[in-house]
């Protein structure tokens, strides 16, 4: 990866909506080249998506519950954890799935409308997978910071307006 590509990635990770003209001035790279770099990085699946970070707790009709589930599984000969991981991440309720070191094997992040919905997913779908040995479900109570963004911070500019 080139320095230019890295710099562009770092900027759009913070603000994916930035326009090419501004980005060009900030990086001293031409708009055409920026477009080409983004195309290339999208094609190589370095950039997977451009999404918004939303605080759904502020949207009354979109109440939802997030749970992190620690899952212990028996890895299968030849495919290790990948096969069972795939069986799990294909469920649309699953927002994220990680293979972990430590006391358990997989961490599943799941979103649902209600606790019941998540309970149903765990008991009916997750636990019933053959290689799953056990599950421990933790419900998120409050989101303070997500993807590097602090949710409740209204940090205003406290500087005095003109200083030497």
């Amino acid at each position, binding site marked *: 990866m080139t320095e230019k590509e890295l710099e562009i990635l770092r900027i759009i990770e913070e603000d994916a909506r930035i326009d090419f003209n*501004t980005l060009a001035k900030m*990086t001293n790279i031409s708009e055409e080249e920026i477009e080409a770099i983004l195309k290339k990085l999208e094609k190589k699946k370095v950039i997977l998506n451009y999404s918004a970070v939303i605080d759904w707790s502020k949207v009354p009709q979109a109440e939802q519950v997030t749970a992190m589930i620690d899952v212990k599984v028996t890895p299968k000969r030849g495919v290790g954890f990948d096969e069972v991981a795939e069986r799990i991440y294909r469920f649309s309720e699953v927002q994220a799935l990680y293979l972990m070191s430590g006391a358990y094997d997989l961490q599943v992040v799941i979103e649902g409308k209600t606790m019941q919905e998540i309970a149903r997913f765990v008991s009916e779908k997750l636990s019933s997978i053959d290689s799953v040995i056990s599950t421990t479900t933790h419900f998120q109570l409050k989101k303070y910071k997500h993807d590097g963004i602090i949710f409740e911070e209204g940090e205003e500019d406290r500087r005095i*307006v*003109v200083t*030497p």
Partner: protein
Amino acid sequence: MSQVNVKTKSRLSSRIQDIKPSGIRRFFDLASSMDNIISLGVGEPDFTTPWNIREASISSMERGFTAYSANAGVLELRQEITKYMYQRFDVDYDPETEVLVTVGASEAIDIGCRAILDPGDEVIIVEPGFVSYSPLVSMAGGVPVSVGTKIEDDFKVSAEQIRAAITEKTKALMISFPNNPTGAVMLKEDLQEIAALAEEHDLIVFSDEIYAELSYDNKHFSFAALEGMKERTILISGFSKAFAMTGWRLGFVMAPPDLLAAMLKLHQYSLMCAPTMAQYGALEALKSGMDDVERMMQSYKQRRGFFVESFAEMGLACHMPGGAFYAFPSIKATGLTSEEFAEKLLYEERVAVVPGNIFGVGGEGHIRCSYATSMENLQEATKRMNRFVSKYL
């Protein structure tokens, strides 16, 4: 019996009366009286001090480190400072005898002047420059002599310009690169001819390198790193700009032992020591803050790119500042003076900038615009400035 006429004798010293009130003050008053302004007038980072530094300072207080420190500063901090300065800028100082932790870089300028100046000694000050140099030289009994730099020279100063200002009374030279307000930088080869001149005329050189970490195109080169210059340099820096620690009031000065001992004498009588809790924050800054410095530097660099380019689109000449976080465009094309421009811009478009003339010789015809503010603010400010400037071009 001697008679003192109490009616005519002023309560104030003539020295303080001779010092002009700060030009920035008037603009501050104007700008603070208005709402909804976008300020490009701020001479400090828009970042809050990184959390690990704040946390270290809080922890030092929790553990009860609330007493005076050594006059020169916490020894461990002085050791970290010398290590940092050696690794980053290739200057080698002894933490025991050649470093003093000050209350901001400003104190270092003050006690440096008071340590070396006798009444009438002249100090050549390269301008446009930081607003404190000239008053602090005067307060120390010295005579400030301005040498102005120009946009055509990228606001660098040449040895010839300095030579032309040297008299028998010249004792010292004051330089600061990267520069506030111009953003100018001087490379090793630029500094070399000045070093030769300092040698020739036996000058002490104040090198205020507070913006050293904010150098975007070339690595900063310290004046004290030039062959033979350490002996005659008062090297000033601090934590305010690089680590976003302006309110902590923590700087440092490095100088040969005789000069440092003299400054320490002043420092111990007037300040005793820099605030201890701030020193523990600074210690953490040096131990683990370099990634944050790099992150902030990159962010300024990107904003610089955006901002400086915008002046070209407005039709204002602006050199590419190599460091600090200021653009210093020429507004001569508008036919307005710096103060007129700044005042009208404030009233008509609610954008605060600082008129260049307050930074001394060479500043008239320019405005200082800080890009230490959010991209969102910069985009809106340039839009408004564009609209404003187009009325005069």
